[in-house]
């Protein structure tokens, strides 16, 4: 965060010259290192052990599902007779139930694992991103051996996104219910969920039932490329944000 970006960048470029990594700095001044899946563990090990970097702490690890990135629900290119409903009838996040969930599209680089590292020694932060291969399932090497704090975070990413971490000592679900089906934070998973738990009078026990809530999102999702920010992005020296 509070760093002179070039120096860290230079060290990273030098260290990972053979690993095909992408280094980018964004508008906020935070550094992102994009790592190919096959070098994931190697790069992580280097980042921790190299004295000039010394990222002793893994602060955060999370999954991201890029399905539907930049999709607009409110197309206003031309006049429409449908009025407000054209915005709220779309199938954006939170608007569909289990039966109408969007087809799980084969999007390249759909899932990402994002890690935030912290070096107490140099007072520096670094973001790592990796797009795991999707076939047969999103799979990536574990970081538990390198930073023990990755343990539960990887369980969480597995639970919520279905990203499998190879070599993880104990890859179980963590946040969802016992016997839960599906990976709820994927963008094609309904916000209202799939099952509901209630007490059944006749069976005299708690049972699982299909969910009865109506999906209801009141504010349409709108994408606007604001010229003010576009300008700032262009002015940035290397101008390329890594997302998308």
């Amino acid at each position, binding site marked *: 965060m509070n760093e002179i970006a070039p120096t860290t960048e230079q060290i990273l470029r030098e260290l990972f010259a053979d690993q095909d990594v992408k280094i980018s700095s964004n508008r906020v001044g935070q550094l992102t290192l994009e790592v190919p899946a096959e070098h994931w563990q190697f790069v992580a090990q280097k980042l921790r052990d190299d004295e000039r970097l010394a990222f002793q702490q893994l*602060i955060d690890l999370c999954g991201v599902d890029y399905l539907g990135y930049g999709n607009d629900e409110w197309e206003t290119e031309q006049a429409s007779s449908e009025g407000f409903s054209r915005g709220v009838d779309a199938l954006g996040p939170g608007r569909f139930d289990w039966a109408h969930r969007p087809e799980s599209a084969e999007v390249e680089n759909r899932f990402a694992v994002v890690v935030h590292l912290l070096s107490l020694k140099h007072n520096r932060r670094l973001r790592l991103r990796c797009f795991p291969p999707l076939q047969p399932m999103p799979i990536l090497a574990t970081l538990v051996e390198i930073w023990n704090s990755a343990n539960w975070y990887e369980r969480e990413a597995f639970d919520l996104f279905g990203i499998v971490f190879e070599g993880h000592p104990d890859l179980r679900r963590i946040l969802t219910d016992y016997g839960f089906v599906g990976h709820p934070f994927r963008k094609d998973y309904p916000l209202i969920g799939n099952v509901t738990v209630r007490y059944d009078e006749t069976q005299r026990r708690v049972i699982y039932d299909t969910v009865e809530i109506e999906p209801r999102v009141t504010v349409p999702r709108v994408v606007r490329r604001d010229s003010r920010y576009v300008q700032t992005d262009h002015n940035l020296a290397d101008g390329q944000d890594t997302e998308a």
Partner: protein
Amino acid sequence: MAEIRNYTMNFGPQHPAAHGVLRLILELDGETVVRADPHIGLLHRATEKLAESKPFNHSIGYMDRLDYVSMMCNEHAYVRAIEQLLGIDVPKRAQYIRTMFDEITRILNHLLWVGTNGLDLGAMTVFLYAFREREQLMDCYEAVSGARMHATYYRPGGVYRDLPQTMPKRLETRWTKGKDLRRVNAWREGSLLDFLQAFCDDFERRVDDYETLLTDNRIWKQRTVGIGVVAPERALQLGFTGPMLRGSGVQWDLRKHQPYACYDEVDFDIVLGVNGDCYDRYLVRIEEMRQSKRIIQQCILWLRQHPGPVMPKNFKVVPPTREEMKHDMEAMIHHFKLFTEGYIVPEGETYAAVEAPKGEFGCYLISDASNKPFRVHLRAPGFVHLSSMNEMLSGHMLADVPAMIGTQDIVLGEIDR
């Protein structure tokens, strides 16, 4: 004689010492814990996914409900992430108000912690005293936001409104009237800042009281000294932050090392432990309360001398006042757009962290240039701390389980999200 073998025991999820809905599967050898497997997620509300379907501002209130004993610090991380992406400047006065309320929140959190941890380990009295002081600070929350806990006070750009000029007074009840009522309202004659000033002047003595009850208490020391020792190297490996890390003697505080709001302008010390046991973490938190009080006093001084705006005049993000709307067409349009659609956060991603009372509370935000976040991930300190439960607990006695849950200062609201 019967054969002795390992015994698996269920602890929680409804256990008064579990601080919420935490379930532990404990493998015991006699009374010694061999393995502890925390089962979490009983309070999982998918806050992060809910945020994806709502405009940015609608989710500020959810942040209060994550770690529901350090409400404003959570808001601070989320709001900072949005501000970084928007690239807007926060007025100085709002920054000072945030600094002050972050520290009020820290005292609120540590008071609850010292009270409940005492309760877990058999010290009933300190709980009652701690809640007396908490009540005063809750009133400050209420005075600025109208809510005692879930304030939604921080907004992108600043804070919702300026500090009130009068501190609300207690009303007469059947139990509090006459002399009692005057005593209760003694601090409340002036503004919020006067009230806080009086509170701070009094607070040092109160902390001394808690220390009298606990610090040299033989039973308290028996229950905490040498229990749950974490070496500094392990603390780093396990991702500890906040008092858990400082209790092990690692000098790291985001307020000092990566200052935000006005922490670089106020004077305070980082509190460090030596042995990394439950007792040292207790001492760290107690001393942090005194340091927080120092910061609040400095903020009061500054805020008294520097009136000014608490929100920028940026109508693309901040709604105009009611009055302006009545006669200004532009303001009307801005207001309509902000309350139907919200504001657009430019494409990008950021990670913003604050030093919450429990440790580093971070917010990783991805925006795809729309009015709703594309992905929010909240880095809760308690989640990481609890994941070390197995390591911290192994080899300790069953009776140390509440001590360990207590010392980690976990709140399941933020762990389960």
